[in-house]
């Protein structure tokens, strides 16, 4: 009986796989020609071929596309280096600072003979990568403070941290993004305005900090009380004890769940499309509005799925390798 069901299952899987390959490869159209696409039965990858520059780089000036491309490569390289244990030294921070300044110069320009490009024109993949990178870079230190605050003896600080963490974790990310895009401008004095990108970035930082704080708290809770007592017995102050004894151990324990939270956060940055930022999904949506190429949403979103999958799956393989050690 079991063999029979295995055979049935094998048949179904093979049939579906064949159907998919037939659609996605055999009958697919690869050249960017919309009339061939309309006539074909298979997938229209010509849409991606035609629009890939816009999808990846958004409204960035066409002649300058090499700049976001190079910046994306730098950013990914920085992440790859940071994943390597032998690079976990003090100068990694300095390397990041240098790398991000180079990326800033590349993207904004206005120096070294590069024409200036205002950040309203940034878009596509680099925007998603930058939003997640800066989101994590600022959210991580904030999350450590929040986690320490949540375990603090001072009732006011504890209540504020608990309140913030539970509030942010209790509501959907969209409502926080809406808050940043429509409510934040009301809080500022007349004449002061923060641009849309920065507002979304702030919302993402607060959101990530609340989730990361809970992971850091998990690491802190895993440290036995003897460690605290031993540090106190040595006469260390609170900050000395936290910085030299508790945090190094707690963060080490928390690395695999931290990476899982980072993966989730990277996926969540795709939501900025809802408040109208030009990320990878928004450029795809705009491309689909071209009358010559409308109706290829299935191909377009499969392409987006593959891009996100490549990044997220790589990170999750890495986190699993760390866990096995």
């Amino acid at each position, binding site marked *: 009986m079991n063999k029979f069901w295995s055979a049935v299952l094998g048949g179904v899987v093979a049939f579906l796989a064949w159907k998919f390959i037939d659609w996605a490869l055999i009958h697919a159209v690869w050249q960017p020609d919309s009339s061939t696409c309309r006539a074909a039965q298979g997938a229209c990858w010509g849409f991606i071929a035609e629009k890939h520059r816009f999808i990846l780089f958004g409204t960035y000036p066409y002649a300058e596309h090499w700049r976001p491309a190079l910046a994306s490569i730098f950013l990914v390289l920085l992440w790859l280096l940071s994943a390597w244990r032998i690079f976990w030294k003090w100068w990694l921070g300095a390397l990041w600072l240098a790398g991000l300044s180079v990326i800033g110069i590349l993207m904004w320009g206005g120096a070294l003979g590069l024409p200036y490009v205002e950040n309203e024109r940034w878009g596509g993949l680099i925007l998603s990568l930058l939003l997640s990178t800066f989101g994590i870079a600022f959210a991580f230190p904030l999350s450590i403070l929040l986690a320490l605050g949540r375990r603090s003896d001072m009732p006011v600080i504890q209540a504020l941290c608990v309140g913030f963490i539970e509030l942010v974790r*209790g509501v*959907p990310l969209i409502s926080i993004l809406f808050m940043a895009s429509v409510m934040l401008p009301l*809080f500022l*004095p*007349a004449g002061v305005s923060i641009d849309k990108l920065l507002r979304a970035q702030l919302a993402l930082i607060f959101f990530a900090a609340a989730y990361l704080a809970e992971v850091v708290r998990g690491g802190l809770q895993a440290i036995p009380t003897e460690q605290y007592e031993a540090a106190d017995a040595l006469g260390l102050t609170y900050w000395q004890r936290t910085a030299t004894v508790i945090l190094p151990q707690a963060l080490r324990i928390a690395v695999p769940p931290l990476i899982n939270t980072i993966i989730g956060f990277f996926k969540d940055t*795709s939501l900025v499309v809802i408040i109208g930022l030009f990320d990878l999904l928004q450029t795809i949506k705009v491309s689909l509005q071209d009358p010559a190429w409308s109706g290829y*949403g*299935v191909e377009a979103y499969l392409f*987006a799925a593959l891009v996100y999958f490549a990044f997220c799956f790589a990170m999750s393989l890495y986190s699993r390798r760390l866990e096995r050690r």
Partner: protein
Amino acid sequence: MLGVAWYLVSNTLANLEERRIASGFAFLWREAGFEIGEASFQRYSASDTYLKALVVGLANTFKVSLAGIVLATVLGATVGLFLVSTNRLLKAVSRAYVEFMRNVPLLVQLLFWYALVTETLPPPPEALQPLPGVFLSNRGIFFPLPGSAPVLDGFNFSGGLAITPELAALLVGLVTYTAAFIAEIVRAGVLSVSRGQFEAARALGLTRGLAMRYVVLPQALRVIVPPLTSQYLSLTKNSSLAVAIGYPDLVSIANTIINQTGQAIEGIAVIMAVYLTISLSISVFMNWYNARIK
């Protein structure tokens, strides 16, 4: 701290005055003036109040969340058991499913399903009929109900149970995405029960299925339930992505109201209050449950 709060509040009041936006919730009793694609469990028309529109959105959120939770649990538990099965093919297929679903943003998946329904299904006159009386078309999915079967009436079907393309895409997306996470939780739960328990049940002469049902699963449930409730909570929060494909849930209706009236603070306060109430009730339930099983 108080100084900062006072500064923000005074700025906000000045801004509101300048933009001629009245603060407070009085606008809720004004006429909404916009149509809503679908209203669950009640009638709604454009002449109803904003309050009524929000209630319709809330009902839609509840409908899609409850249906999503039930279906995701069934699918997730099934895939989770496949992940620990002895059949290699079954295991490989479910592993591939879980990995793919978990590593692609839900929003991308929702847009994909919406495109699949609206672009690849035929228009109602040429609707697919996979089962007698069930119709798949780009205007929605139609099921027969006792006493009322869907019939083609002009350009669309009438009668029977209709599921709009928006609801179909949202439900399929939420269910298949959350099920992947539930599957991993179920797998971890089953693996947490020591192998001796299963072997002892087999030695008593129970079949594999019965041993799983009566010995392993009841013990695994203890490990499964806490993370499962947090998945239910995130499914409910994720249903707010409905705004991206145009399903009228609470968030997308509140968003429409904010755009119409400019009452951003009140609109966002409503969204946050509703979700915080749901989150807090679920965590109260969780604490009660944890105290009970200890």
